[in-house]
């Protein structure tokens, strides 16, 4: 039948796209186990680059710094974002629409523009480059994502639950803590994962704001690539990809991302 033939073509196309999406990543992972420094084939298995990575304090320090910045960003952005979402959800007030629209510039404006603007401003106020500036920037980029994700979850919240709790004598803080927060917990976790991902993958803003010699992992990778390929970058990249995909798979169970439930 014609229908099944077209369906077959469609599935083949999907398969081809999956190949396109994964091939370079797999190649890179493969190369991180290849002995040759210049990616020469034939392939010769070796753990050299992982060993070298273990001794490369510059990369390891950058990786640690990236993780710490991402964790700090996650905590701050999730806390502030959840508080703001609760206020936007629970109250009607003038200017609310404006506050919601204000969330879009950080998402919609290219990071190149936001990053250079931050650089100018932080220099202007005397803060300059460095980890504090990077952190301020990351939190600002992650905040809108947290607010959007948590608000989406709050939208599914049945307000009568709060009213029921209040009718049983609970004060508003108790209601928030015992009724509202448990309901939106999955939204908060999803928001936190977004925040972590935005910060940990963030290159552009970090690039303009971090001190040379005190940079995050993506910035270090960028400068290494421009100086010339080093296979240790393959090794650390492979590790990053494995970890972030594992985190994402874990997250998929919480956020029902793209699911129809």
């Amino acid at each position, binding site marked *: 039948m014609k229908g099944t033939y077209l369906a077959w073509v469609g599935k083949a*196309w999907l398969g081809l796209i999956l190949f396109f999406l994964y091939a370079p990543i797999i190649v890179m992972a493969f190369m991180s186990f290849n002995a040759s420094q210049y990616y020469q084939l034939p392939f010769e298995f070796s753990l050299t680059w992982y060993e070298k990575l273990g001794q490369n304090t510059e990369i390891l320090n950058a990786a640690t710094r990236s993780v710490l910045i991402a964790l700090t960003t996650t905590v701050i952005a999730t806390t502030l974002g959840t508080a703001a979402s609760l206020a936007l959800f629970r109250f009607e007030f003038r200017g609310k629409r404006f506050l919601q629209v204000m969330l879009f510039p950080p998402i919609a404006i290219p990071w190149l523009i936001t990053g250079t603007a931050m650089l100018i401003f932080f220099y202007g106020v005397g803060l300059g480059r460095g980890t504090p500036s990077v952190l301020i920037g990351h939190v600002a980029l992650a905040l809108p994502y947290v607010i959007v994700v948590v608000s989406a979850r709050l939208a599914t919240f049945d307000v009568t639950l709060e009213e029921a709790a209040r009718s049983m004598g609970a004060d508003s803080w108790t209601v928030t803590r015992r009724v509202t927060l448990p309901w939106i917990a999955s939204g908060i976790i999803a928001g936190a994962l977004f925040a972590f991902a935005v910060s940990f993958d963030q290159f552009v803003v970090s690039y303009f704001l971090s001190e040379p010699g005190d940079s995050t992992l993506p910035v270090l990778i960028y400068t290494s690539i421009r100086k010339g390929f080093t296979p240790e970058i393959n090794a650390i990249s492979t590790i990053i990809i494995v970890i972030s995909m594992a985190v994402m798979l874990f997250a998929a169970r919480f956020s029902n991302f793209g699911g129809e439930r």
Partner: protein
Amino acid sequence: MSTVLARQDRLKIASLLSPAYIWLTVAIFLPLSAMLYFSFLSDVPFGDAEWRYTTDNYQAFFQTSTYATLLWKSIKLGLTVTAVSVLVGFPCAYVLAKVIKGKSREALFLLVILPFWSNSLVRIFSWAIVLRGNGVLDLGLNAILPFEVDVNLMFSTPAIVIGLVHSYLPYVILTSYLALQAIDDSLIDAARSMGANKLTILWRLILPLSLPGLLAGAVLIFVPVVGSFMEPRILGGRVGTYFGTVIEDQFVAVFNWPLGAALSFILLAVVLLILATASPVLRRAQA
């Protein structure tokens, strides 16, 4: 809607909202204002540098054709990457949303958006390994093909396009998939019962109904690609000079911040123009 709020409520709203919005103001809106201010200065107002107000930075854009040419080159790159991503990604999203059923759909969908969560730099870097002369693509093709080919896509425009499409393709698949999934299958059944063939259904029903999702994906791709500088640098080499790389240079190499600020604002104007053009369709989707 209550227009008069209790004092207590106003206090609560303020204490919940102000931390987040003060942070956004300090880190996004004040910097953007500062950049606008800088773009009208002749030099950075730090230390003992001499400076005055001027429109020279904006005039520079119009005086030589270099900047305009590069901006146009960036816009063309954005259009190319967006078009390729839409043409490649929409059929994918359609297959996922309407052809594949049951559990395997969720798994495949996850598989499609998973690479998206890995570091973009790392992905661009892995393309460099694949595309360069004597690289994986070169060796792979020569192993399969009976004749000798010399594939060295590295440091070319196609390399930049491939890398960017790889980076941003999941956006358009994601948004199109969500839009397509929302189309009730009975609408397609109804069109068929009235005698419509597949092409008519695609053209009159599926495309109009999924247009907002498709457009949202396109905007999400176009905006960052016009401002991209890292991908052209790594994959483009000498041909990788774009509007984004010129702005980057002003801040990290040439240290002409006022000019960089002006160029950034011109880029921002282009982006806002694109968003304003797309927003009526996107807003219609919410109604």
